[in-house]
């Protein structure tokens, strides 16, 4: 949709695809794709259930604001964390949300560079998912601090206190990693959106929407020069975003590996975290894609081929994650360190054993057997 070269290739790929299902359903051309997609936005009436769903989600967001206000006024003791497990609920959520965002970036950047044309049907909402995931992730490191109103001290700025952040701390690296990630993801999403906003501007019937989309389209006219710059910019952003897929979660894993605590001090963490991120990110893309294609009638665009490819990525990354779990347990034993051994053993058989085995069942057994 966003890249004019790729949809043209896709119907051909569909024919030559052999055993694999087509990227888009037969009979679609550039024109029909545009008609179909823009009709969802422009002509289709917003159904009643959408408003119902939206108000439920809005209420949940309200609950978030209420909870955060209570948290700030009362203190983070309300979470039940404790020393030495000072992070629990908050940073686990942070890691999870950041991980989810990775699938969006992987689809956008790496698959673009690898010329995987099947990405074009799912990249936009995967990128949007990345943005929302990063925004959600951002809440946690901010509000996990005891005094969130001072969290800006983690940002290097020339302050009257003439003191810098402590650059040896992985939490400061996190600030850089996540803010870069959020910026690049936003740019990537928006640059890809510009020609589509122009299409919507041209097709919108009402003045208000014409102006709204027009502002978003930044004066896009679809000239060859525009397309050329667009291609270059998109490619450069993909180049920028590609290392981020690996680096962001690596830095997040440093939050733990830098520590000298048993169960944290492990070299397996960076690859294990990145694989876990892509794994849960693709799970989230599928969770969103399957209802979305049914509700908006997009079975022609998000075909079984997409679902198959995503499932394959999940199988592969799921195996890497399984390897990570295995190595964690193995190293606990192999290290010969009684504390490491106890940590692993306690995880498997201690008070949290139900969660551990549920994790193994959900993350390894279910996807691999399915």
């Amino acid at each position, binding site marked *: 949709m966003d890249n004019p070269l790729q949809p043209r290739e896709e119907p051909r790929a569909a024919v030559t695809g052999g055993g694999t299902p087509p990227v888009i359903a037969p009979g679609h051309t550039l024109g029909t794709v545009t008609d179909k997609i823009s009709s969802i936005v422009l002509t289709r009436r917003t159904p009643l259930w959408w408003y119902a769903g939206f108000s439920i989600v809005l209420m949940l967001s309200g609950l978030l604001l209420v909870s955060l206000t209570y948290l700030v006024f009362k203190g*983070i*003791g309300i979470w039940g964390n*404790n*020393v030495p497990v000072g992070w629990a609920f908050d940073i686990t959520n942070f890691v999870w949300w950041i991980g989810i965002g990775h699938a969006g970036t992987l689809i956008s950047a790496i698959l673009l560079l690898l010329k995987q044309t099947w990405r074009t049907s799912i990249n936009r909402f995967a990128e949007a998912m990345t943005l929302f995931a990063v925004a959600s992730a951002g809440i946690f490191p901010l509000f996990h601090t005891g*005094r*969130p109103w001072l969290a800006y*001290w983690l940002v290097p700025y020339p302050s009257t206190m003439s003191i810098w*952040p402590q650059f040896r*701390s992985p939490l400061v690296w996190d600030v850089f990693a996540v803010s870069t990630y959020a910026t690049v993801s936003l740019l990537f999403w928006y640059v890809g959106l510009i020609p589509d906003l122009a299409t919507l501007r041209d097709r919108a019937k009402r003045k208000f929407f014409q102006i709204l989309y027009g502002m978003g389209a930044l004066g896009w006219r679809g000239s060859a020069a525009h397309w050329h710059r667009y291609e270059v910019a998109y490619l450069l952003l993909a180049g920028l975003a590609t290392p981020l897929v690996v680096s962001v979660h690596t830095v997040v894993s440093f939050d733990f590996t830098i*520590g000298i605590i048993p169960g944290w001090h492990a070299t397996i963490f960076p690859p294990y975290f990145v694989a876990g991120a892509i794994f849960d990110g693709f799970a989230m893309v599928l969770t969103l894609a399957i209802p979305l294609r049914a509700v908006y009638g997009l079975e022609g665009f998000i075909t079984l081929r997409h679902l198959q490819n995503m499932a394959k990525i999940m199988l592969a990354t799921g195996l890497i994650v399984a390897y990570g779990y295995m190595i964690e347990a193995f190293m606990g034993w192999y290290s010969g360190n009684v504390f490491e051994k106890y940590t692993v053993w306690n995880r498997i058989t201690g008070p949290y054993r139900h969660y551990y085995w549920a994790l193994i069942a959900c993350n390894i057994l279910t996807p691999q057997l399915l």
Partner: protein
Amino acid sequence: MPQWGMTVDLDRCTGCEACVVACHAENNLPIVGPDQAAMGRTHQWIRVERYWEGEFPNIKAKFMPVMCQQCDAAPCEPVCPVNATYHTPDGLNAQVYNRCVGTRFCANNCPYTVRFFTWFTPSWPSPLNEQLNPDVSLRTSGIMEKCTFCVQRIRRAEDTAKDEKRAVKDGEIKTACQQACPADAIVFGDLNDPGSRVVQLKAEERNYSLLGELNTRPRTTYLAAVRNVNPELGE
């Protein structure tokens, strides 16, 4: 410049916990109440760990007071994103309450678990509010705190010595736990003064660091308990 250090003689410790009470009184430790205490959120800058040896009825209790070890290579320091915990020139592992934003990374990374987070705004129910020590600042919620080696006593002694144009004498500074210890198990002093009691005690063979294999190089070291039971007496 003096370099402060401490020894704890486990042969002398009886586990009476007078040090714990003294620390509470000296350092204005927050009182968290029974509910929070049941969650394990009590503030004990010094705690007495108890280990059982043997099976009942031939059972022995061993005690070990554990406070901030004032590590020279402190794992808590490099992980603080805002420099709230840092090393003073005289070797204290200091916590700057005003700078702390409360990420709790330091407590996560402390192998001795001697850092305490203030989960809620502390209060001292009457009459405890009458005994707060004016030399020690009260801490707000959302920050980390820990044993300071009674830095207020160190600074006061240094000021007095400076006014009298002399160096701080060995034994002039007593930490609250040391002062309260009836068995004289805790000794504090200057590691740069070869004649100080703490240096002599650290030279003993019994001297060891807690979790020394982590290479945190603690300033507080322990003197191992020696049991010399006469086999003819039996257990």
